[in-house]
């Protein structure tokens, strides 16, 4: 097996591209990221590593970035690779605007990013990008919100809600159990609740951004996140109390 994992252009006898699978491992070690699609809102949340004391968090790069006015991206995995991919995607968004005088659709830019990731799995002397991305946005004409995910192999798919990175399986399980069509604040709450399954609570450790059709991407302030987290904890406590209450009487 060791002979087949050096160069990525080589298949192993049982059909694996080991470098791609190792890239997926790198993703699994990255910070958790979650995306939830509502009827009029799409939300991205990422786990934030607590900043070192001397780190200047005001100027540090945010983890949820704009690709265009109506498209945003979050990723899990090698952040340095992310910068390269994001720059290429931003150029492609503008190039598309220039050549067809139209903003990109979410599907188009996802296809472009996935195509780029695939190119690096079929070239000599390069390694795959070690990240999976979550891409959210609104269709420029129909206004329909979308959430897409790409991974190092270059595949992409559309989701109602998904997670990637550390403990993504637990988050996805939670989402599968608790997902329902939401809008506005409810969508934000659902995304934060999902992220809280694997992250210690507090605005310090979560970064959340909300996109709406009219207002584009809005990064939530720490205080706002704290407020919503407090709401969620209160709801949880109330649910616990309700469960215990009737049982005690009986």
């Amino acid at each position: 097996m060791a002979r087949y994992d050096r160069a990525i252009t080589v298949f192993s006898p049982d059909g694996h591209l080991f470098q791609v699978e190792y890239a997926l491992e790198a993703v699994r070690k990255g910070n958790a990221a979650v995306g939830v699609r509502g009827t009029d809102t799409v939300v991205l949340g990422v786990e934030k590593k607590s900043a070192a004391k001397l780190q200047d968090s005001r100027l540090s790069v945010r983890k949820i970035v704009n690709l265009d006015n109506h498209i945003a991206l979050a990723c899990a995995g090698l952040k340095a690779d992310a910068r390269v991919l994001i720059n290429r995607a931003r150029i492609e968004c503008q190039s598309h605007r220039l050549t067809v005088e139209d903003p990109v659709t979410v599907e188009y830019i996802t296809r472009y990013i996935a195509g780029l990731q695939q190119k690096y799995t079929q070239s000599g002397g390069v390694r795959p990008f070690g990240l999976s991305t979550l891409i959210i946005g609104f269709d420029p004409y129909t206004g329909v919100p979308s959430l897409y995910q790409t991974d190092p192999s270059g595949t992409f798919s559309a989701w109602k809600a998904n997670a990637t990175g550390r403990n993504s399986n637990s988050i996805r399980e939670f989402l599968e159990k608790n997902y329902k069509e939401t809008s506005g604040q409810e969508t934000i709450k659902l995304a934060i609740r999902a992220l809280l399954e694997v992250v210690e609570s507090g605005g310090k450790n979560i970064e959340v951004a909300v996109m709406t059709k009219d207002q584009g991407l809005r990064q939530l302030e720490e205080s706002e996140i704290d407020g919503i987290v407090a709401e969620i904890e209160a709801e949880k406590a109330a649910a616990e109390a309700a469960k215990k209450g009737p049982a005690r009487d009986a």
Partner: protein
Amino acid sequence: MKLDTTGLESALPLFGANCQMVDGFTAAPAFDLPTTLDFDGFQKEAIQMVKPAKGTTTLAFIFKEGVMVAADSRASMGGYISSQSVKKIIEINPYMLGTMAGGAADCQFWHRNLGIKVCRLHELANKRRISVTGASKLLANILYSYRGMGLSVGTMIAGWDETGPGLYYVDSEGGRLKGPRFSVGSGSPYAYGVLDSGYRYDMSIEEAAELARRAIYHATFRDGASGGVASVYHVGPNGWKKLSGDDVGELHYKYYPVTPSTVEQEMVEVSGA
């Protein structure tokens, strides 16, 4: 081992030939340049040779019910009429039309290329039709990349897309204009006269068709390089439809019927002696 760096190239060039073209042709049109002492002069001559060939009348305008497109059908080589039955309205796809003025081969080729390689591929890749804006922009970029090489194209792209009716004028100098009314060709001044004075936004389809037909007729009446058949097409929300193709000679007698003049003296048969 030589590193394969094709994956590291930058994405689409920001202008110039669209990347989709790269698969069909070489990245830039490359052929041996002729060895002359004065290459710029040679280029100018090449353009001058083709320039007079925009002997035609085409017009298009947007109105309440969509876009009306009309053209004559004469092809002339100097003073010789080489054909009276040229199709100058090219069907790019079921909801977009292009008009031909300039070099017939250039117009036909690039319109067909636009329809298949650009518009159809875009539809298949993106699961939605390309906009008139996008199609005309891509054509203009392609023509711009051949600027100075002797292409002669003066075309109007008319169509109906998600944003409604669209009309663009695109030429081989690389120019692209959006507008509500255009006429292209040697007969265009005459057509503009009729079109501009008779135009109203809220016409019915029949009124607009009659206006287009009359404008083409008047252009063919005065311009020697235009004639043949006046074709009129309408582009609506469900695509284009050919409305009529009338011989301009017959149109003349329809608009100006021969009135029998009063006879002063009639010749009577003289009975043979």
